[in-house]
């Protein structure tokens, strides 16, 4: 019935096979550095697989988060914990292997009853998902249905997730220290070794930041949104710190300011919900975001052709901004905490 799409299935299976091999390699290797690098490769292969599954938003997020921030955080932890490899242990493998095979067997038995892969009338695809596809654009004015669902229909979920990310950032800062004083510049000899990296960073950081804002503001009409843009913006800051030293970056973006931005993001998000209540609607009900008399005075050219959902547009724009602030600031806080503790450890403050 569908010619030429079996090639898609073949490609997906090959990529899944690569993922299985990668997961096995991560389990087999004993060097932690190898495991971290393989984890990055695993994220990249997942990204390609996700693009094949028509999920560009998720692929975006997986690429930046998995191959970027996750690798950096793992390397920072390896540096601090001075972990190089794990110990031998043959006897430990029997019980976990049995557990994995047992649970896996039960899951495979259950999975055999799942609908066929790609079936459009499966219960997952036929009811709520299809309703969102039919109604989202006419109700919210956003062409990207994923953004419309994330920001408007399931906005309360996203508020919770943003709060979890903020809490994790605060938690890491509490555990590893609120690095207040910047640790100082690179030494002169180190500077001349890093010339190529510094010049490349100077070329790339503005481009990366610009791309982050492009992804942020195009979240409604193309793959993108606050989560991806926040992580890309944080990666620009981390690149600056890697090329020029943590001290320089903390002079430009003090740690306290970054933490304040994270809190401000959650405040903006929840604040928009409260404003909706104040104007007579429910929490995060964007149709009531602005009072009716102000809404009538908005000139038509400001919204663009065909967009007459001012409340929804403003609501989605505002909460994506809140998400951008929180996610970017939290990722930068994570990096500051790990790198700041490494700097103070190297200078002999801690054991």
């Amino acid at each position, binding site marked *: 019935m569908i010619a030429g799409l079996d090639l898609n299935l073949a490609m997906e299976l090959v990529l899944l096979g690569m993922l299985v091999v990668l997961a096995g390699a991560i389990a087999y290797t*004993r060097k932690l550095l190898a495991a971290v690098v393989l984890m990055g490769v695993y994220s990249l292969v997942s990204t390609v697989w996700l693009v094949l599954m028509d999920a560009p938003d998720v692929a975006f997020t997986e690429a930046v988060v998995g191959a970027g921030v996750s690798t950096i955080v793992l390397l920072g932890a390896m540096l601090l914990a001075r972990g190089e490899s794990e110990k031998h242990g043959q006897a430990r493998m029997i019980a976990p292997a049995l557990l994995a095979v047992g649970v896996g067997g039960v899951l495979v038995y259950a999975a055999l009853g799942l609908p066929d892969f790609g079936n459009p009338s499966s219960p997952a695809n036929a009811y709520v998902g299809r309703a969102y596809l039919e109604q989202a654009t006419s109700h919210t004015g956003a062409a990207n249905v994923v953004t419309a669902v994330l920001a408007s229909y399931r906005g309360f979920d996203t508020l919770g997730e943003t709060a979890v990310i903020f809490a994790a950032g605060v938690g890491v800062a509490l555990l590893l220290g609120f690095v207040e004083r910047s640790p100082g510049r690179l030494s002169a000899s180190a500077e001349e*070794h890093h010339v*190529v990296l510094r010049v490349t960073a100077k070329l790339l950081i503005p481009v990366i930041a610009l791309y982050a804002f492009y992804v942020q503001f195009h979240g409604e009409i193309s793959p993108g949104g606050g989560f991806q843009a926040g992580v890309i913006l944080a990666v620009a800051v981390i690149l600056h710190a890697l090329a020029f030293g943590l001290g320089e970056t903390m002079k430009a973006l003090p740690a306290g300011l970054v933490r304040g931005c994270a809190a401000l993001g959650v405040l903006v998000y929840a604040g928009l919900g409260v404003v909706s209540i104040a104007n007579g609607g429910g929490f995060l009900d964007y149709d009531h975001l602005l009072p009716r008399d102000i809404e009538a005075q908005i000139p038509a050219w400001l919204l663009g052709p065909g967009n007459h959902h001012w409340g929804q547009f403003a609501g989605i724009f505002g909460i994506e901004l809140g998400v951008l602030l929180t996610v970017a600031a939290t990722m930068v806080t994570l990096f500051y905490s790990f790198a700041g503790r490494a700097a103070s450890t190297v200078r002999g403050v801690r054991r």
Partner: protein
Amino acid sequence: MADLLALAGGGFAIAGALLSILGALGVLRFPDVYTRIHAASITDTGGATLMLLGLGLIAGAQFLTLKLVLVWVLILITSPAAANALANAAHSSGYTPWIGAFRIMRAGEKDPARPASRDGAAPQAWPPKDDGGTIE
């Protein structure tokens, strides 16, 4: 004409993929870290360039081709910088390159087959023996 260009584009893309496979093979088979860096950067520059050229030929003249050119420029800027950073880190850690069958030994090393890293930590042996599960 467009079909011929698409065919040529497909050929370039396959050539780029083959170059990437060769680069991966080189990383596994080459003897020391500097030659492996060279093999890995073949994947980025040669492989990616040919694949992007192939994709551009398949796409024809649209806005998409301009985006592919921009991706190519980005890869050209970042990949040599990454190779440089890697070689810099290897040199700072004390790896001196193997030249044929010989190696320039650092002061204080006795055994040419077992180069030591700068801070005297775990020495690196060539050929690496299989102690179960390490990927060097």
